[in-house]
């Protein structure tokens, strides 16, 4: 058989990113100012974003799909890179970890996420997932002289391996059952052979659910998140809380709605308890946190729980609401982490909730911004966080899961306590000690982007919602 050259068009942005990431790794040797590498990595992903528009198509025999859905998520990943780099520049100097490979690893992790979003085959999915995971393990342990950072990396790695095993186990079960790893072929095989209720299919569904739940930090597979979030460099925590989570949702949506769409009634039974448990654990444990990074780790768990409702509803509206949610979450969480990073300075960790006491008196502008982000995370109207929650809840109500939404709203109300506590500390307490802020133009830009987006998309959500809805036509 004559070997046919596959169409490289759809995979072109990823190819470019691979090359650029490798170039940056080498450039580290000649470039002394590491900010330059940061800048170059922003330029690289911007170029990739530009290429995305022309990449629509399917290639490698359906293994790689570049469609509206994947492009939407890829834009979130790219946004994630830009914001992460912006908040990193100064921070990694303070932590004395300003090495060039920091940026390359971020790009490689992003490459993994992009592969995940485009995976039309379980093998590609696994490949992307591992590329992302391995890069983030290293990034989590990037502060190599810091015990906590090392511990975070180690835990993340071992538990991640554990989760990967589930994914592989699920993949092999489904391969054994259907004889394929292609998502569309799996779907038609299940429908064609009436496999609903098949115990092997059940088992593999559970395996997939577990593996993806691990990535999005859904309970009870979230245990790694608080420790890793706390130990990792704060900029990486921000990166991890947005990117891999969005990537997890991208594959969750694609695998469960494409391959297992016909057995939705089965996997909903797995995801609903997981979602409720996730919202419960995330919100309730967040209440008693004293470290803001840990608090946001639990908050991030809780948000995964809300977003799961969109997958559970299984409709087009549900899926687009999850996309909107991830988009919203990227901005508000990044913004919150940017403020946290500003509090970190030489000899001052600034990640304790008490450190925020009276911040409004000493530094009103960051306090106002933090207030906006906390409101958004709570889901107060006119912020993008409200929009995300509103549409996710709405889709679940329309799909007939009113009772789950009621539980979600109750947990959402509970969550107001720990978000608003930060606001209360900032505005209603007297400052105890003078907090020095570490500012830089880059972080200022990151805050400007995030705050503008949080308010802007909160007031004018229709553009992004329309984009998300358009993106999944023909999904």
């Amino acid at each position: 058989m004559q070997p046919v050259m596959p169409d490289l068009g759809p995979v072109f942005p990823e190819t470019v990113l691979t090359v650029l990431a490798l170039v940056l790794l080498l450039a580290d040797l000649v470039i002394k100012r590491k900010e330059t590498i940061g800048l170059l990595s922003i330029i690289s992903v911007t170029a990739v974003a530009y290429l995305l528009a022309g990449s629509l198509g399917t290639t490698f025999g359906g293994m790689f799909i570049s469609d509206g859905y994947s492009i939407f998520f890829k834009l979130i990943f790219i946004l994630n890179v830009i914001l992460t780099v912006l908040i990193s520049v100064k921070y990694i100097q303070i932590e004395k970890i300003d090495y060039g490979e920091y940026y390359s690893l971020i790009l490689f992790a992003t490459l993994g996420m992009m592969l995940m979003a485009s995976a039309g085959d379980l093998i590609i999915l696994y490949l992307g997932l591992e590329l992302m995971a391995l890069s983030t393990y290293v990034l989590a342990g990037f502060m190599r002289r810091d015990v906590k950072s090392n511990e975070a990396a180690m835990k993340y790695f071992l538990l991640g391996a554990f989760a990967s095993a589930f994914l592989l186990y699920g993949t092999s079960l489904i391969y054994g059952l259907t004889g394929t790893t292609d998502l569309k072929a799996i779907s038609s095989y299940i429908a064609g052979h009436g496999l609903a209720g098949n115990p092997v299919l059940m088992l593999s569904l559970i395996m997939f659910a577990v593996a993806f739940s691990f990535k999005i930090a859904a309970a009870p597979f979230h245990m790694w998140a608080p420790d890793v979030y706390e130990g990792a460099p704060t900029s990486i925590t921000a990166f991890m809380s947005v990117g891999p989570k969005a990537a997890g949702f991208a594959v969750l949506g694609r695998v469960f709605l494409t391959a297992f769409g016909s057995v939705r009634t089965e996997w909903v039974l797995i995801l609903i308890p997981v979602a409720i448990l996730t919202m419960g654990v995330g919100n309730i444990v967040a209440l008693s946190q004293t470290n803001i990074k840990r608090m946001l780790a639990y908050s991030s768990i809780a948000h995964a729980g809300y977003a799961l409702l969109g997958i559970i509803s299984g409709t087009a509206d549900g899926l687009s609401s999850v996309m909107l949610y991830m988009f919203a979450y990227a901005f508000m969480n990044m913004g919150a982490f940017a403020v946290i990073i500003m509090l970190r300075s030489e000899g001052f960790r600034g990640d304790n909730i008490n450190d925020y006491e009276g911040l409004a008196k000493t530094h009103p502008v960051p306090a106002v911004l933090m207030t906006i982000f906390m409101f958004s995370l709570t889901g107060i109207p006119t912020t993008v966080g409200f929009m995300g929650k509103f549409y996710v809840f709405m889709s679940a109500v329309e799909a007939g899961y009113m009772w789950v939404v009621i539980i979600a709203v109750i947990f959402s109300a509970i969550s107001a306590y720990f978000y608003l506590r930060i606001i209360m500390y900032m505005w209603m307490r007297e400052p105890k000690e003078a907090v020095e802020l570490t500012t830089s133009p880059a972080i200022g830009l990151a805050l400007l982007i995030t705050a503008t987006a949080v308010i802007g998309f909160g007031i004018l959500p229709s553009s992004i919602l329309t984009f998300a809805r358009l993106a999944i036509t023909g999904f």
Partner: protein
Amino acid sequence: MNYYLLIPFLPLAAFIINILFGRSVLKENAHWVSILAVAGSWVVAVATLMDVISGKTLNQNLYTWIVSGSFKVSVGFLIDQLTAVMLIVVTTCSTLIHIYSVGYMHGDKGYYRFFSYLSLFTFCMLMLVMANNFLQLYFGWEGVGLCSYFLIGYYFDKKSASDAGKKAFIVNRFGDFGFGLGIIMIFITFGTVYYEPVFNQAGSFAANTVNFLGYDVNLITLIALLLFCGSIGKSAQLPLHVWLPDAMEGPTPVSALIHAATMVTAGVFLVARCNAIFSLSETALMVVALTGAITSLFAATIGLVQNDLKRIIAYSTISQLGYMFLACGVGGYTAGVFHLYTHAFFKALLFLCAGSVMHAMGGELDIQKMGGLKKYMPVTYGTMFLASLSIAGVPGLAGFFSKDEILWLAYSGPSPVGKLVWLIGTVVAFLTAFYSFRLIFLTFHGKFRGTHEQEHHLHESPKTMTITLMLLCIGAVSAGWVGIPALIGDAVGLENWISEFMRPVLGHPEGHGTHAEEWMVMAISIAAGFAGIGLAYFLYLRRTDIPARLSEQFSWVHRILFNKYYVDELYSLILIRPTIWSAKNILIGITDAKVIEAIVNGVPNAIGSFSRQLRKVQTGLLQHYAMIMATGVLIIVALMLLR
């Protein structure tokens, strides 16, 4: 005509600039931003009016915030004849009062705060009148209420002021609750909250009934009355009028702008805007007419005996608002809006004059301690005198034309209660003239009755204030000339322009009566006005001993009126005290301590301790984490198998 967007958004921009930079950068220049913005709005509003006059109207959705099924939350603008008139009223009064405030608020420590609230208020008010759907109307409605709360309690370190702010807010809750229900009913009935489809379809629901608390009620009547609840609260009608007199605790420009010219008239605007709904229900119209008539009489009688300068004008406002509702209730929406428009000028002027007097008197408000001020402050005296002539309905001035039209429509219109409300309206015209001139004579004529120190201090107000007074005075005199009744107009070749102008939106009921009757109604109302002025002249300038004797002779009447029919006391007795008592004894004592406390503290405590327990699961030990994951998997497998 997209430039109309500037009308609301210029004041919004001014608010944002002032609130962000007012304290640190602008300081005593804060007024510039606000004045320029609102003056810009005025210019655009005039241009918009011109467009509307030339026949252009507009109903446009700007953007949609949330869509959920058939429910849409969006911002849209409707610019028609009614909106155009309201825009002129709001921006003109707002601009002039902004300018006046420069002098009045000079040196106040919250200068920038005052102007930013004023801008925010203007924005909300404009959003209210420009809305093309009920939700945005509601947004503006609550927005002006919020600003009103801020501004009444502007001197928040004064307890009476912050109490008055709270009172206004809480009393309005009662009305707005009904208003909110009304909007919900509209959505349930029509499936939309946009004016156009609602008003177009209202007719087809006219015969529908709905079960309300066990009674079959006409659907449209119920909607109209629920909406009117909002009007009652916002426009301070019986029985929710109690907040407006207390709202006088706010700075005087605020009383003029919010509590005379604009916000309080929103209720009238609402009824006029929803005329398609109200006109379908005779019951609702009757309720509107009677509420208006009774309120206007009630407030006018209280106004007779009060001594607080601003409160007299406040009661006068309540009374005149009643007049507007009276007009709407007999189907004369145009007349109601016409009176709203003329009233805005002369009432704002009266308040600003009162502010000017307070300025001279060092904050003194008791008219019994004034007197003879006319020689110290001629501009204030002259303008206030003209404003009072206008409100008394002296022919040729603004108030005359609108009042006459209302009375004639009441008399001749088809309303079953028309003759009754006409009679009440005429009596009120007499009372209005009387108390307005009682105020003038006691304040500006006779001998000064205050302290020497005050007398020494008397002076005319600064230019920014007096010029504003004169400008508003032009309005108070001439605003009515756009609505010259056909009776006179035909003779001199002028048409009743404003009625014709508003006909497409508000319709225009023709009175059924002869010319002779129309002359009679007019003559009676003029006579009532002059009689009121004459009696005030007689009692307070000629025979100054009589008022005291009268109040002794009829001391019980005087006492009832002076104590405002004891409404506040009544509410205190039946509402506030039981509420506070039950709050203290039942809520705090039992419910709060035993139930709520248990829930409010107990649940978080439980959650908190649960949280701390749960947190212990997070041991930090990898093996435990893997164990929990594995357990989770097993539980899910078990769940799926045991299903």
